[in-house]
């Protein structure tokens, strides 16, 4: 009883013990915060890493191809049986992406994926990471009228139409200027006949532009139509001209081959205001740049590309002698997994189109080769066992495929993160160990200070073990109070971590977790109860260990010497 009473009284009256409690509290709180944030980061990262990689991937090495993929898929399903949830075929090839922004040419390397609209979303968590709402439920490579994320600004068909109109107007103005320059060029032969036959249906601005050279004795020239040329009307006119028997007229107007010329219909012509190229989904980071205002420190988004813009891609064809080919594509959406590695290099287009482009389709069977088969297993399936089954079914000697789980593929980064967590925990536990030495020093002081009390207790018949347990109990109490306060502080910190990050940013003027680097809108945290228990137990253990030596010293103290101590 006296042990409990004295431990409690020492805890209440020795304020130096507060220093030990605070050091334990801070150590425990730091460990909980760091572990929670790390666990949040890791979980988020694993989800994203896993997201696009399915569970198991059977891939041809390098730029190689898997022939007869349907037969392989059947074999995979036969080998794994009920464990398979879905499979998909993909083509993956490095490519160059080329586009213009503000007159500047951007070229960068990308990893181009050909994906199947039907099955790819079932195998990996691809759809939730698309920015367009409509595509999150049903994947398509068509540009959408609406459903895009508001932060992208104006995009989709309305943006494309507007852009096409502006480009057309720019082109019209450019041509106008060129013609003006040509007409006023003193070295160019002047032809009055040409000018008079010109059809002047130009807009008022064009008319004004035309009027000036005329006034100065210059020439008149045809203005461009304000709209896309009505090709249909031209065709009808041409057809009519072709049908009627050649009318008497100037020889030069006669076109004997008019009926042989192809009939061009308006809808057959590519009209950027109405048509799109092959749809391509780009990683958001390819387009997105974060700008940081140096004065306010605020970040703003700039998009080099938006859904509705056109890009060019250059990629190698398939087969044994790859040749470069180029293709126009229209950006239809962005992929934003928040994994910078993926978002800055991945681009997706329809599987069939990519197979056609690369010449991977067998002309006889119509079946296209693929780069890899991705397999999604049922949640309860054992990943490693499934991989082994596939390796048995496709022995490496016969079929040179790389069969890897998503963890195998991301092994380097997962191992690095695990190592990082381990080292961080060791370092942080060392901090608590430092706190432990603080407790040791404090306890030694308290034991010295309480030497006379120890003598008194011994003179009253208290055994050495009892005296020792006063100080051990004191250590446990310090550890427990410190750990308890540390848990509360740590959990409160984790709970309000984003608000705290805002406050730190406000004070220091620097972003704590720069979204330009991490692509996190919020700091992810996961509190693992087991970790909390371990941290608390560890810190109490350290506090007890630190109090053992002083307690032993107290227990061994000679009662007479203790009583005489001044």
């Amino acid at each position, binding site marked *: *009883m*006296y042990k*409990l*009473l*004295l431990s409690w*009284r*020492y805890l209440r*009256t020795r304020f130096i013990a507060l220093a030990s409690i605070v050091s334990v509290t801070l150590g425990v709180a730091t460990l909980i915060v760091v572990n929670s944030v790390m666990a949040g980061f890791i979980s988020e990262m694993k989800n994203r890493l896993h997201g696009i990689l399915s569970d198991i991937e059977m891939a041809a090495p390098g730029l190689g191809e898997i022939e007869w993929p349907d037969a392989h898929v059947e074999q995979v399903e036969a080998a794994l049986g009920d464990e398979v949830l879905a499979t998909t075929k993909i083509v993956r090839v490095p490519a160059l992406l080329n586009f213009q922004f503000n007159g500047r040419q951007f070229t960068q390397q990308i990893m181009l994926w050909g994906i199947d609209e039907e099955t790819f979303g079932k195998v990996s968590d691809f759809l939730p990471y698309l920015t367009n709402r409509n595509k999150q439920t049903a994947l398509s490579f068509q540009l959408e009228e609406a459903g895009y994320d508001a932060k992208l600004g104006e995009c989709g068909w309305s943006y494309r139409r507007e852009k096409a109109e502006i480009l057309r107007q720019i082109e019209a103005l450019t041509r106008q200027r060129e013609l003006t320059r040509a007409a006023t060029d003193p070295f160019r032969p002047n032809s009055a006949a040409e000018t008079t036959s010109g059809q002047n249906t130009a807009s008022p601005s064009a008319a004004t532009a035309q009027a000036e050279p005329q006034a100065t004795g210059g020439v008149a020239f045809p203005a461009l139509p304000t709209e896309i040329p009505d090709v249909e009307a031209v065709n009808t006119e041409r057809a009519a001209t072709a049908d009627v028997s050649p009318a008497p007229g100037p020889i030069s107007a006669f076109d004997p081959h008019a009926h042989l010329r192809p009939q061009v219909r308006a809808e057959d012509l590519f009209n950027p205001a109405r048509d799109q190229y092959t749809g391509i989904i780009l990683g958001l980071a390819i387009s997105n740049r974060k700008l940081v205002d140096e004065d306010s420190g605020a970040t703003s988004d700039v998009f080099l590309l938006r859904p509705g813009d056109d890009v060019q891609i250059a990629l190698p064809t398939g087969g044994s002698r790859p040749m470069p080919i180029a293709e126009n594509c229209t950006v239809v959406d962005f992929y934003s997994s928040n994994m910078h590695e993926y978002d800055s290099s991945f681009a997706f287009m329809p599987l069939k189109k990519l197979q056609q482009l690369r010449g991977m389709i067998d002309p006889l069977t119509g079946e296209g080769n693929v780069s890899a088969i991705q397999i999604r297993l049922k949640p309860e399936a054992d990943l490693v066992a499934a991989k082994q089954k596939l390796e048995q079914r496709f022995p490496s000697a016969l079929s040179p495929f790389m069969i890897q789980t998503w963890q195998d593929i991301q092994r380097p980064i997962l191992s690095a993160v695990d190592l990082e967590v381990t080292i961080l925990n060791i370092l942080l536990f060392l901090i608590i160990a430092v706190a432990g030495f603080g407790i040791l020093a404090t306890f030694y002081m308290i034991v010295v200070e309480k030497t*006379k*009390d120890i*003598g*008194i*207790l*011994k*003179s*009253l*018949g*208290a*055994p*050495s073990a*009892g005296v020792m347990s006063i100080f051990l109990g004191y250590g446990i109490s310090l550890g427990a109070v410190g750990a308890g306060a540390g848990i509360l502080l740590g959990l409160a910190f984790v709970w309000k971590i984003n608000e705290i990050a805002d406050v730190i940013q406000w004070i220091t003027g620097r972003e704590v977790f720069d979204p330009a680097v991490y692509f996190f809108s919020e700091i992810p945290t996961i509190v693992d109860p087991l970790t909390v228990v371990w941290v608390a137990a560890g810190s109490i253990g350290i506090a007890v260990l630190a109090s053992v030596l002083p307690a032993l010293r107290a227990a061994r103290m*000679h*009662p*007479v010497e203790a*009583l005489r101590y001044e």
Partner: protein
Amino acid sequence: MSETMRRKSPGFQDSAAGERTGRVPLRVARPIAMRGVGIEKSYRKRNVEVPVLKGVDLEIALGEFTAIVGQSGSGKSTLLHLLGTLDAPDAGEIWYDQQRIDDLPARQRDHLRNREFGLIFQFYHLLPELTVLENVLVSQMVQHGVWAYLRRRKENVARASELLERVGLSHRLKHRPNQLSGGEMQRTAIARALMSRPRVLLADEPTGNLDRENGTRVLETLLDLCREEQLTVVMVTHDEQIAKSADAVVRLVDGRIA
């Protein structure tokens, strides 16, 4: 009591019948409570052996007030500590209740100090973190485990209050030692020493740090205890006046009985 404690000292049950080894004058034939035989004790100070007791023989009769007197450094306190098992002699024997106690295991010596002996010191030695009442109750807390103590708490508190009332401190139960005067602290220490109903009270200059009035009051309390409750009191003092009121006097000069 264990078998080791039951070892008997032949011919040492009665001071009148036994051979007198000490030179303590005994006026009445009383049973012997404690006996020291050839006690030697020295301290080591910076590798120099300093002898304090050089073969002390003494007998303390049951229910008597024995004063150990001598000048400073004569070994009075050391002798008292040895009698109270706070320390062990280098040579010689100490007997209590017909058992040798100087070579007992630590646990049994703790037991003796807790149940049989009550110790009072010159500088009171109260625990500063505890109240007056708690200080008195400490020996009971040491004696019993948590549950056993809590079960008897009421009767213990009643007894402690009664003892404190007896020494005139019933109004000071909740005070801390630093709120008491020297005399009050010493009276608290007496109450604490009496709490476990000891058979021997060992007091090391209990009046040495008090003014005459308080000193007299403490002395009277001790004398009353001895006379009324037949408590054996051994008191170290250098005050000859106090020694005069004792039943027996052990005079120490330079580590020997004079």
